[in-house]
């Protein structure tokens, strides 16, 4: 035990619990603050129609953030999100039209999700490549695949109606997308808290070697986490294609940073082993509200990027420190 850990270790034994809970609580406080700022900027944010839009956007990021939370919890990261989204959307919509069947789109989502997830597992677990750089490379590869495909087959303009329903539909007053997110999110929280899966995730993130010696099936766990992450991204690709009624190259590019930001703002440490999905929910909402607020303020793209980077950096500075 190095000097830095002695102080932490011998302080209150409930330190970790309250520390993790404190972070989640703080993320919700920030959410309220951001929402208040949004309202101050534009009263429209009080209207349900505006909020609905934000919830749908947050749903997209939130679903991606499920897999991203898992990945970061085991000490990795998944940056192959953007082109998984795009590839799944393009491939899914084209094949659905080609075979004239809705379920084909879902099959594509599952297929792409499993394939990308296994590819990421291959690099990160089997070949022991740093997950950041491997998933970025996979992202580039998927970009290539998407380009090759769209060169060979013209993208269709007909999106599967089930996608449109999921993305744009409503059940009563609530958007379907939000309900889907709520369902997936609940599953994620249950999985992390009350399934053996969750324990294994935290164990691996805490100390991989000890997990190995305790009999945790590392390969299987890595595969599950990356497949879940890729499935989430692929599914969001389908949703996005329904949302904007088109599947175009680069549609996923704006979704990598926000999902990582959501997880980090939500209190999950990048080193792994601490955090959870409850915070990521607040994180997703914060990210979406921030983006909306900046657009309302007519802030230029450059300024928006600066603000985002600066805000996230400040939050990271406040929350996520390395040991001395």
């Amino acid at each position: 035990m190095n000097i830095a850990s002695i102080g932490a270790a011998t302080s209150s034994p409930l330190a970790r619990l309250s520390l993790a809970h404190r972070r989640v609580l703080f993320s919700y406080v920030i959410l309220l603050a951001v929402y208040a700022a949004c309202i101050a900027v534009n009263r429209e944010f009080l209207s349900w129609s505006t909020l609905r839009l934000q919830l749908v956007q947050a749903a997209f990021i939130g679903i991606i953030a499920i897999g991203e939370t898992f990945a970061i919890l085991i000490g990795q990261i998944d940056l192959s999100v953007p082109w998984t989204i795009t590839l799944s959307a393009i491939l899914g919509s084209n094949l659905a039209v080609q075979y004239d069947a809705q379920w084909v789109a879902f099959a594509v989502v599952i297929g792409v999700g499993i394939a990308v997830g296994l590819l990421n597992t291959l690099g990160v677990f089997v070949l022991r490549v740093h997950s950041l750089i491997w998933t970025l490379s996979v992202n580039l590869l998927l970009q290539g695949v998407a380009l090759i495909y769209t060169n060979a087959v013209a993208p269709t303009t007909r999106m599967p109606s089930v996608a449109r329903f999921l993305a744009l539909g409503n059940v009563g007053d609530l958007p379907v997308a939000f309900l889907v997110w709520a369902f997936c999110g609940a599953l994620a929280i249950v999985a992390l808290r009350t399934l053996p899966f969750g324990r294994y995730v935290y164990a691996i993130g805490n100390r991989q070697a000890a997990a190995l010696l305790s009999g945790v099936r590392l390969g299987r766990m890595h595969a599950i986490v990356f497949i879940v992450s890729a499935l989430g991204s692929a599914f969001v690709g389908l949703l996005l294609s329904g949302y904007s009624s088109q599947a175009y190259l680069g549609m996923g590019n704006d979704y990598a940073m926000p999902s990582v930001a959501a997880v980090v703002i939500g209190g999950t440490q990048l080193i792994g082993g601490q955090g959870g999905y409850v915070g990521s929910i607040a994180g997703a909402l914060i990210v979406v509200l921030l983006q909306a607020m900046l657009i309302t303020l007519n802030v230029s793209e450059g300024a928006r990027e600066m603000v985002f980077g600066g805000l996230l950096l400040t939050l990271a500075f406040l929350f996520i420190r390395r040991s001395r």
Partner: protein
Amino acid sequence: MADSDMPALAAVGLTKRFGGVMALQDVDLALQRGEVHALIGANGAGKSTLVKLLAGIVYPDAGEIRIAGRPAAIANPRSARNAGIATVHQELSLFPSLSVAENILIGQELRRGGFWVDARAGRRRAAVLLAGLGAEDIDPDAKLGELPLAQAQIVEIAKALSGDPGVLILDEPTSALSITEVERLLALVGRLRAKGTAIVFISHRLGEIERIADRVTILRSGKKVGEFAPNTFSRTRALALMLGESWQAGRVARPPATPAAVAAAAPVLRVQGLSLHRHFVDVDFDLRPGEVVGLAGLEGQGQKDVLFALFGLFRRGVEGRIEIAGRRIHPRRPRQSIDAGMAFIPDDRRSLGGFLGLSVSENIAITVLDQLRRGFLLSPAAETTLVTGLIQRLGIVCPNPAALLGSLSGGNQQKVVAAKWLARPMPVYVFCDPTRGVDAGARAGLFQVIRELVTAGSGVLFYSTDISEFPALCDRVLVFREGRISGTLAGQAVSEQNILDLSFREAQHAAA
């Protein structure tokens, strides 16, 4: 007062608090020139903290340090070095990617023209320092990562000596060394003492203390509880002071003789012709239910590698036959050995067995999560029952099961690590150096656990770097030398002397 009477270093009233815990309380220490001052105490007594204060790694909350009578503020490692205090740390502070010479002179590089590093002069100075330590065989240009631990330790000492310190602190310098290397080190300490250096020597091994120390200071729970002037050291008094009341618990009775019934039972573990290139070769033995078999010998002779191989930690290259409870296995990862019925308790220092950031309950339950399910979900009630039962059974000291493992003492952490394998009985338990860095009280607790396991019918494989533990615990001992079993001892023949003999004898090949 004559100048030669003035202590080289005098610390008065040193106090340090970490969070809510008093690591050190009002401790005084006087180091005389040309004297070896030993510092002993159980784990958590405050020795490391005292070292860190003297080395400048942390700053005292109260108290003063005087060098040759003058107060010195040691605010960081650099000022400690400037004050003439050099430390050989327990966890070596060396850099594998740099060369030996670069390591020795780090922070004090010789320059050429005020800017460029003079590598040649540096090499020469390093060679001189190494020769002074009797280590001419170490090449100053060699990359440190290539050296074995004993040589790396000498480099660390050379690094400490490079500033010609008046005070040298040696923090557990022998805990990872073989017997011959310990001899070399003790001889070196003697030479430094003769030269006039004040030496602080920290060790768990009272035998070494008896041999080398002039003065001995004992710490317990952050306070100084005793000091022995030269030639007055008494092992029994020291133990009593170190451990307080728990000393009596440290005594371990000899195990009863192996009942005949055990000898006849089918082996829970059978190993035949086990070999791993460059680690060990032709290892044969049986482990029967109810017995504790120890793997002894000098460190690094293959014992640990055999245990790793049995537990599937080697991914390839292991040849031979392994049978657990009659079933043959080829473990290429730990999961396979676990499924076959083997549990593995690693040594504390590497923190391999425990998740410091998870709670005691989560640590213990990790191996049996499937059993704790009701339907799909984990049952908190089942987990609590299991965990509280095991906490009681092993006497684990923790405020409650939700406490973080990292907040427990080393000995209790090790008990938790053992506990997770006790949730369901396994045929074979492997204890790989479980008492390393664990104080006497917790050690007795672990031995008790091992006793219970064999009484319940399991077989235990035991490895330790402390040779005195084998006679206290093992029914049979296999002594290793250079990757082979050089001999077997059983029953009354298991003694430190016999183990030492076999450790040095050439391996005997299987009789025709």
